[in-house]
């Protein structure tokens, strides 16, 4: 049996988590979490780590608008998603929540504006 130590990134508290892993890498138990989201995070982190990506996108006018993935995406795809964001030119006049790229690279997450263009 293997123990994996993690720092929870769900909230600023940053709980020190311990995940007990089985033979096949499956999570048998999680401890150290102060809320149920910590358990979900530990399970995801040991099986399929996910991250929200935040960045900026260039608009037609040359202005820069901040953006994010509307939900977390697989950690291994962060740089691929960044490439997609950086080759996109968004229209001007974006509002918070406007979709800039739909279902980016099939992740199920949209790239949405987080500031006003």
């Amino acid at each position, binding site marked *: 049996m293997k123990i994996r130590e993690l720092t929870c990134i769900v909230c600023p508290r940053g709980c020190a988590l311990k995940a007990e892993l089985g033979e096949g890498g499956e999570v048998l138990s999680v401890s150290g979490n102060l809320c149920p989201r910590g358990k979900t995070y530990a399970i995801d982190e040991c099986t399929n780590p996910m991250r929200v990506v935040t960045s900026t996108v260039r608009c037609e006018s040359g202005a820069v608008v901040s953006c994010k993935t509307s939900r977390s995406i697989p950690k291994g795809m962060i740089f691929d998603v960044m490439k997609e964001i950086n080759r996109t030119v968004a229209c001007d006049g974006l509002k918070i929540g406007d979709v800039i790229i739909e279902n980016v690279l099939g992740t199920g997450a949209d790239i949405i504006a987080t500031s*006003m263009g």
Partner: protein
Amino acid sequence: MNTKATKELSAELVIVGGGPAGMAAAVAAYEEGIRDILILERDDNLGGILRQCIHNGFGLHRFGEELTGPEYAYRYEKMVRELNIPFMTDTMVTAISPERVVTAQNTEYGIFTVKAGAVILAMGCRERPKGALNIAGTRPAGIYTAGTAQKFVNMKGYMPGKEVVILGSGDIGLIMARRMTLEGAKVKAVCELMPYSGGLARNIEQCLNDFGIPLMLSHTVVEIHGKDRLEGVTIGKVDEARRPIPETFEYIPCDTLLLSCGLIPENELTKDAGIELDRITNGAVVDGDRETDIPGVFACGNVLHVHDLVDYVSEEAAIAGKAAVRFIRGEGKKDISVQVKCDGKVRYTVPQRLTEIADTRIYFRVADVYRDMKVTVRAGDTVLYQKKKQKLAPGEMETVELTRDMIDKAQGLGAPIEIGLI
């Protein structure tokens, strides 16, 4: 010759700074029934530093969801706009008098004054600059504070460089390590003078560990190299007295050095007004209402003490906003005077004094990393309250709740309340 008289305005409540603290204070004051409010902001829009903090993690406490900085700021900006709370942008406040006359300037009015019923200081903080760090070597281009680099990248769309070393592991430094990496730069190391990081554990995990960026604790930059443009830095390990150890010196080629070496509340106006400052927080000394020693002048947010979370800034600003309204209405009551002290392990508290018998949340920071301690509230020899904490660190602000009973007891004993660790 221009003989035009200085314009003289007045407002029941003047708020200096339109960042998260100023906006939350304004909204809270509005909700208490005050309409004659004026927010003075030096930038070209409301929102403060949150506008460039495009990463997420804001708002979990305040709004119950995870927002980015601009989204969090916009929630408040929208409230300010929808409530028609007056504000001026591109307006710089240059003086506040003890009589609560605020002097400011902008291109519309030139220099003007605002006579205020109450003033809330919400100027935020700034980064400790290179000049304050005394690093040896040359002074080439390519050295920025992390926040300046953040503004370049996130608001202007410019990358300051390609090969980066970061000095200081405050949260902005950690966030910028990730941000520069995402935009294609190579972040070679984050050096931290102290044996622990000043940033949140989650940021070390998701900003450094996710990208294999080394965090070099007890390390500092000892020399800067390069004539016109930065070419590299020499880093080294430091001993327990934080002196660099020559045998450990190592040269790292880089074109960019980012500094994330602490934040300093921006209190020039406060000092000039003659308000008493706390030499640990570098902010004003305040009571539970966040009122300074000048009646009717309040302070909140990072100008009072540097916060980890904007959620707590909003919370504190609401306290100041509501209290300012009570002051304007002549309802502020100050029936006691109890000092709040700390034992050294606890480095500072806010508020530093209590003037009212009411349940009060005390914010504090500790001086070092401590494990398995009891946060202890005492008045003289009497222990009023204790709670266990597994871990306390200087980078994470803590709170303890003082009840009316505890304050009443301390008042009865005639002793200050001391917050300490055992």
